[in-house]
């Protein structure tokens, strides 16, 4: 079985400050890790993924994420937050053991960026 934990329901940050949204995972086998963003009344948009290789992954809108195998974490980061980054963020995990590339999603973290 695979699982994802996003320990913070909400993260508050001031515009221009760095932001981190936390994610830890549990999976048997090598993990495939994803971050998605959801704006109000919209579906999820793919931000970035880690499959293999460099532990620091860069994605859309200036976001990046760091894979840490020993801590089973995949935290989302951005050096300088924008008000427009305010949204709901989901971490997801899959593995090579899954038929059909099934993903398990975390409960989501709401990011609030204040001017």
């Amino acid at each position, binding site marked *: 079985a695979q699982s994802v934990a996003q320990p913070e329901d909400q993260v508050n940050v001031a515009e221009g400050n760095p932001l981190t949204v936390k994610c830890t995972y549990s999976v048997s086998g090598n993990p495939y890790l994803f971050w998605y963003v959801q704006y109000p009344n919209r*579906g999820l948009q793919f931000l970035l993924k880690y*499959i293999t290789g460099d532990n620091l992954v860069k994605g859309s809108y200036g976001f990046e994420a760091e894979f840490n195998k020993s801590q089973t974490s995949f935290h989302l980061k951005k050096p300088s937050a924008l008000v427009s980054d305010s949204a709901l963020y989901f971490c997801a995990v899959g593995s090579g053991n899954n038929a059909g590339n099934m993903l398990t999603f975390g409960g989501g973290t709401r990011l609030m960026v204040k001017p």
Partner: protein
Amino acid sequence: DVKVTQSSRYLVKRTGEKVFLECVQDMDHENMFWYRQDPGLGLRLIYFSYDVKMKEKGDIPEGYSVSREKKERFSLILESASTNQTSMYLCASSFLRQGGQPQHFGDGTRLSIL
């Protein structure tokens, strides 16, 4: 760009009705998925399909069925709608390849059962 289109953004139905939610994708993806999204629970997988006429149960299939007669279309059916099925429903699709394929989502259908 991948386009996943869900037929309705908002839908209101009555208890006991048979409800159809439709999803179409234009990227020739093999995999298609139906999730429901509830506050604090994230996304929960209802059913998925990796080929025409193939379906697999997800985590919460009770009260739902699916149909995939064509590769691009995946339908979710609520056989007899109940109030606890009021939720946001999201459809997604992806390629069936060596793992790590991102799923692409539609904008969702917000379903209310009265």
